[in-house]
């Protein structure tokens, strides 16, 4: 029993911390809201320490096979906890400026992270579903955090309705797979699939339904309709967090369930995944070109990046490659986390009340008046395109390499071409910052500027030390490919 608890300790720490923070917050006076934020950040740091301390290379199942602690989950836990810390850093000043500083924000954030971490550890489809809801429900509420603004309410309602709809797809898929194999444990499903006792039609339909549900969560085309509206309407600090966290958790489940349980269905699923990845890259990048609002631009960019990460799943069934591809996906998620939070920190620094300061034209003159901030934004834009020497380049490099080794030349070509297209709209931001005259207004928020600066440094520096990082990611997925 204690071994079980130890295995899922990071989730327990964050979940319990969130509950205690909710209670403790009642005794913290209104004007000392900073304490709540600091306590939440402290909880995330404790979670990080615990996670690194119990990190293991041999996978260990816990709670009768419901959960599994392995390198994959440890790596993802670091990702989620880091996104939580950055999420608090960009939120604190922003919430006060927008007049929506409510301390529930931080406990909801912690609850959502506990769901994401549970998702990374899930070894049973029931846990996948519960974790999906546990991470989503706080995000629905946070999307509607700006209760006095109609677009925030609209974002929350849209996200909630479509999220619930997607959840229905996942449950239906789980039910069909249970019907075919008689179990929801991923290990049992795998053995039933391999022994050939399960009906392949039921299995394929079930897997496809789960793919639809998770496709909604990671914002893959054609399940992306909600993304631009929700990303634009939700408070920017929430968007920054959910663009990374929800996406990473969705991919955690996708990689774990598909690569582990369905490798023998590859002949049916790979064409599906191929089409999904190609469509997502093409639509995300092309529609992003015409956007003039920076939040919508980053929303479409986030759709496009979901497409790149989806490329990793087409190696399904090629057991030698799956580990590399999953490692590339993990590395890409880490690169996207740093780049995305940095970019959103700059966006939040320029956002003013009533949603002003969000047009790309508002960035005119930033290069002259605030050279450091403009330089950081340029670094993030280059990393999103995938230009060396940024970590985004290496993320794309590892992914394309895995896809090419798998023999999917066509998909890799689509990936490279759409990256070229994306250079147009990312570089337009840089051009506006440096080549046009303007009077940009920037908020004085030290935490925000530090977040942008540190992210920019990390994006540049990690590209130099990418090899050990990629090796860590590879070790993390050794189990997932076996």
């Amino acid at each position: 029993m204690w071994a079980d608890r130890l295995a899922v300790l990071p989730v327990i720490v964050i979940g319990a911390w969130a509950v205690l923070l909710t209670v403790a917050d009642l005794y913290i006076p209104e004007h000392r809201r900073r304490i709540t934020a600091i306590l939440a950040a402290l909880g995330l740091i404790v979670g990080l320490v615990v996670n690194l301390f119990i990190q293991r290379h041999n996978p260990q199942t816990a709670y009768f096979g419901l959960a599994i602690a392995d390198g994959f989950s440890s790596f993802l836990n670091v990702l989620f906890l880091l996104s939580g810390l950055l999420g608090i850093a960009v939120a604190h000043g922003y919430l006060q400026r927008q007049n929506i500083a409510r301390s529930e924000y931080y406990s909801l954030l912690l609850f959502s992270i506990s769901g994401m971490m549970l998702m990374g550890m899930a070894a049973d489809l029931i846990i996948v579903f519960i974790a999906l809801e546990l991470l989503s429900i706080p995000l629905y509420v946070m999307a509607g955090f700006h209760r006095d603004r109609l677009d925030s309410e609209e974002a929350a309602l849209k996200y909630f309705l479509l999220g619930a709809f997607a959840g229905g797809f996942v449950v239906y898929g789980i039910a069909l797979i249970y019907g075919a194999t008689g179990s929801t444990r991923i290990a049992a499903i795998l053995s039933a699939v391999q022994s050939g006792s399960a009906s392949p039609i039921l299995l394929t339909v079930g897997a496809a339904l789960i793919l639809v549900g998770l496709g909604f969560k990671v914002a893959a085309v054609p399940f992306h309709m909600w993304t631009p509206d929700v990303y634009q309407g939700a408070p920017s600090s929430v968007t920054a967090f959910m663009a990374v966290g929800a996406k990473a958790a969705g991919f955690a489940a996708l990689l774990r369930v598909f690569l582990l349980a369905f490798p023998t269905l590859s002949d049916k699923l790979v064409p599906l995944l191929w089409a999904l990845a190609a469509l997502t890259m093409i639509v995300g990048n092309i529609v992003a070109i015409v956007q003039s609002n920076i939040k919508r631009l980053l929303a479409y960019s986030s759709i496009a990046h979901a497409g790149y990460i989806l490329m990793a799943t087409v190696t399904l069934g090629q057991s030698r490659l799956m580990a590399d591809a999953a490692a590339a996906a993990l590395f890409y998620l880490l690169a996207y986390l740093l780049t995305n939070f940095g970019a959103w920190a700059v966006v939040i620094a320029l956002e003013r009340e009533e949603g002003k300061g969000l047009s790309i034209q508002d960035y005119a003159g930033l290069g002259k008046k605030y050279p450091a901030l403009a330089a950081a934004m340029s670094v993030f834009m280059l990393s999103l395109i995938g230009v060396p020497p940024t970590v985004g380049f290496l993320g794309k490099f590892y992914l394309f390499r895995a896809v090419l080794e798998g023999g999917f030349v066509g998909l890799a070509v689509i990936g490279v071409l759409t990256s070229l297209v994306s250079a147009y709209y990312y570089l337009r931001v840089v051009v506006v910052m440096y080549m046009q005259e303007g009077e940009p207004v920037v908020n004085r928020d030290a935490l925000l500027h530090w977040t942008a600066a540190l992210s920019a440094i990390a994006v540049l520096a990690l590209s130099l030390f990418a090899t050990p990082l990629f090796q860590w990611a590879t070790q993390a997925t050794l189990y997932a490919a076996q």
Partner: protein
Amino acid sequence: MSVDYVLFGGLALVTILSALGMLFSRNAVYSALYLIFNFSTIAVLYLMLSAPFIALAQITVYAGAIMVLFLFVIMLLGAEQRGQAVRTWWMQPLALGLAGILIFEAIYLIFTHRTSFPPLRQAVGDLGNPLQIGEQLFSNYLLAFEAVALLLLVAVIGAIFLSRGRKLR
């Protein structure tokens, strides 16, 4: 055995009639009440299949909690009377088609697999025995149980946050 069949036939008739009543009532409150009636008869059907726990869960959860919530919402919104419904031309044919497929499936199964159905009691077995459910919940699915507890707590916090008066800051 024959008593069982008579009982089942009567209950099935009531179930179907209450479902039709729900569909065709013009007043939303009557519809909700018919639905409660429908849920209760289904609970009795569960009882006949010797699944008392599921029967009681059906009554407390569906007929009780969920339908009371429905009634509250209907009355609070004052939506008792059906307004001018927006109809799209493809809705009715689609519904008819889907219902046709379902009925065809049921008839096909009954006539082709008739002999391979196990006797009722044997098929149900111990399923729905509260002791067994409890044991499963606290051993095999303990983590899921705890995670659901956390999930419900989050839902409560979120609901309170979103609905709390705007002056309270």
